[in-house]
């Protein structure tokens, strides 16, 4: 029986994180496709998906052989490293220290880089474009796979988390094919802020369970952790914004 107090945040985190990663991968594949045609872009993307699927099939069964407490500890620590890293970046963007990511600008930069690389190398743009699309899909896909495993493996939620991630990827693909432009309106930093909070909360929860801590309130303590990370993140960002305004004055 699935507990929705854990399943809902897990599926939500997988969906939102996959939305961010799929948008980033789509921007790069779109740059390759626009610059050189869709053959190189699609071949690279498909190859990336194939390698990703092979890695999941190859390493997935290993998870079943690891004792649950050790698995929770390993995934919990990795979630803390990954989630707090995302949260840090999102807070710094919210505070105005790092500029917000602009998919239109990222698309222009990717296109310029591809053109420069093609000019400076002997190999054709098809090859460079294909490799670029391959790397984008593989790296962003690995992040999606990690998030799905991380939020799903500890409580047998791999299937719901996978479905959440798949729904996000299909949504980005459908909208992307429809408008054939970078998905600039996706509120990427807000999503990253939310996902960073959820992954950090899961990270504390599973690291603790892996260490043998019986959290008061059971699964419900996840919401307390998430609320604390939200308050601390927003508070830190607000203080930095305010101090930057004072310094400017």
């Amino acid at each position, binding site marked *: 029986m699935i507990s929705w107090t854990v399943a809902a945040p897990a599926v939500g985190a997988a969906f939102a994180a996959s939305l961010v990663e799929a948008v980033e991968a789509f921007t790069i594949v779109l740059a390759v496709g626009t610059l050189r045609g869709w053959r190189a872009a699609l071949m690279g993307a498909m190859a990336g998906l194939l390698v990703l699927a092979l890695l999941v099939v190859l390493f997935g069964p290993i998870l079943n052989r690891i004792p649950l407490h050790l698995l929770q500890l390993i995934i919990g620590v990795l979630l803390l490293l990954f989630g707090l*890293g995302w949260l840090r970046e999102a807070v710094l963007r919210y505070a105005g220290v790092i500029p917000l990511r602009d998919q239109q600008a990222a698309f222009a930069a990717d296109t310029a880089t591809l053109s420069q690389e093609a000019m400076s190398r002997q190999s054709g743009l098809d090859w460079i474009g294909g490799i670029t699309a391959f*790397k984008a899909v593989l790296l962003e896909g690995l992040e999606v796979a990690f998030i799905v495993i991380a939020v799903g493996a500890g409580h047998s939620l791999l299937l719901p988390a996978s479905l959440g991630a798949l729904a996000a990827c299909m949504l980005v693909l459908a909208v992307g094919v429809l408008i054939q432009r970078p998905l600039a309106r996706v509120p990427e930093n807000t999503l990253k802020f939310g996902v960073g909070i959820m992954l950090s909360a899961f990270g504390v929860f599973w690291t603790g369970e892996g260490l043998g801590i019986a959290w008061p309130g059971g699964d419900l303590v996840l919401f307390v952790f998430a609320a*604390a990370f939200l308050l601390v993140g927003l508070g830190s960002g607000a203080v930095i914004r305010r101090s930057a305004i004072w310094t400017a004055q």
Partner: protein
Amino acid sequence: MNLVRDVAKGLLGMFVGDAALSSAILAVVAGAALVIKTEVASTQLGGALLFAGCLAALVGSVFRGARRPQRIG
């Protein structure tokens, strides 16, 4: 080999975006594990240490990041 190196770099970057933050997190987890495994205090106190330590690591990293020029990924 550039491809393999780029993928390995990307994978490492997933977990070690900011070395100081990653070190702080690992130190907090090690501290909590030490408290729990040596039974210095209750597991609940170890949990509180883990939770508070992660919040403190985040705040410290954010304020440190605000004071120095950023590399935009």
